[in-house]
């Protein structure tokens, strides 16, 4: 299966995750102020603690392949979001977006996983994608409450 790295440029990032949510500090490993996207083929998905991880084979424009590690949320947290541990299978082609490693090694802390068909999986450490949706809902709740107060 052909794979390729689609984007490896560092982008400035508006933080969506709340530091207070983290019960440990991954900042020394991953640079949450930056975002990269890599595309590849799942080699292995491990539904474990302290973080679920996916190993992805990424092939660059020159045909050189490299194995990337991506880490997400705690398996216990993902279970509560409805994950079962079979969301990713070897051979699945995915796009990973997240915070790159500080040491430049091929790993990232994912924020979003996108399948070939465009469907998105969140499940990143601190649940940044889910938090974005939650914030939208809370904004609606806030407007609704304000509207109730002014009636």
């Amino acid at each position: 299966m052909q794979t390729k790295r689609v984007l490896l440029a560092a982008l400035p990032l508006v933080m969506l995750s709340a530091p207070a949510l983290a019960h440990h500090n991954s900042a020394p490993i991953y640079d949450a102020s930056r975002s990269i996207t890599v595309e590849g083929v799942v080699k292995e998905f491990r539904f474990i603690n302290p973080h679920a991880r996916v190993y992805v084979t990424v092939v660059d424009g020159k045909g050189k392949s490299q194995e990337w590690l991506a880490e997400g949320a705690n398996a216990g947290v993902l279970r509560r979001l409805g994950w079962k541990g079979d969301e990713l299978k070897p051979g699945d082609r995915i796009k990973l977006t997240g915070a790159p490693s500080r040491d430049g090694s091929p790993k990232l802390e994912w924020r979003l996983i996108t399948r070939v068909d465009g469907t998105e999986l969140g499940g990143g450490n601190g649940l940044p994608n889910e938090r974005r949706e939650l914030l939208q809902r809370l904004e609606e709740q806030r407007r609704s409450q304000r509207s109730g107060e002014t009636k």
Partner: protein
Amino acid sequence: MLSMPCWVDGARAQERTALEGVWSTAFTARDHPAFTIDDHLCPLCAPVALDHLRKLIADPANDRRPLQELAQEATRIGNESRAGLLTDAGRARLKQNSGAANDAVIRCEPPDLFTLIRAPLPIAFTLRDDHVVIHHDFWNTVRTIRLTGQSAQADERPTRLGSSTARFEGSTLVVETRNLLGAISAGFTTSDGSKLVERWTPRGGGRLDLELIIDDPASYREPLVLMQARARTPDEKILDLPPCEVTSGQR
């Protein structure tokens, strides 16, 4: 032998009913109606930050500001407040140990008590005549704590989880822990000899409020207070997952 008045037994039974069961945070039970907007925005919050956040949300002048921005402002207030309480020794310890190599959770080591309590995963309370069992989903940790009605004594060898005693003050379960080893975790530090007090108060609507007090004069000039809300989740279970298999960031 003294016998317990029947109304005391009745009151205790009510306290137990109110507290027993599984409780989740807004992180894993996002749709629970017991949670308010500020519970989601500031899930482990210093009172000063929580007050600030509530005022920001209540003020119509902030209606055009995104909630995320208000949460960040409140978090900053809380962080500044905590930093202001640090002693020189506490500040130095935090600075020296800010790397991943010094974070026990990242090293895949069993958590200290503070890290265990603040973990945003479910916990289950079981009450018996003379003890309470708190089962934490995080690291599948079980704490069995005697209901002695007395404070914990600072006279034992320090350990990760220390030695705890518990008592009821009305409907509030108060757990005091001493003989703790110092720890560093995600911007917090505690030193050997600190005392942790957990005050668990069930509220109406399936809500449980935790007031966590870190009494550690070596690290903080005043006791550090943090608030966390939980909601009753009867369909939830404590999962029996392996707690930690691979150190974060390592292949």
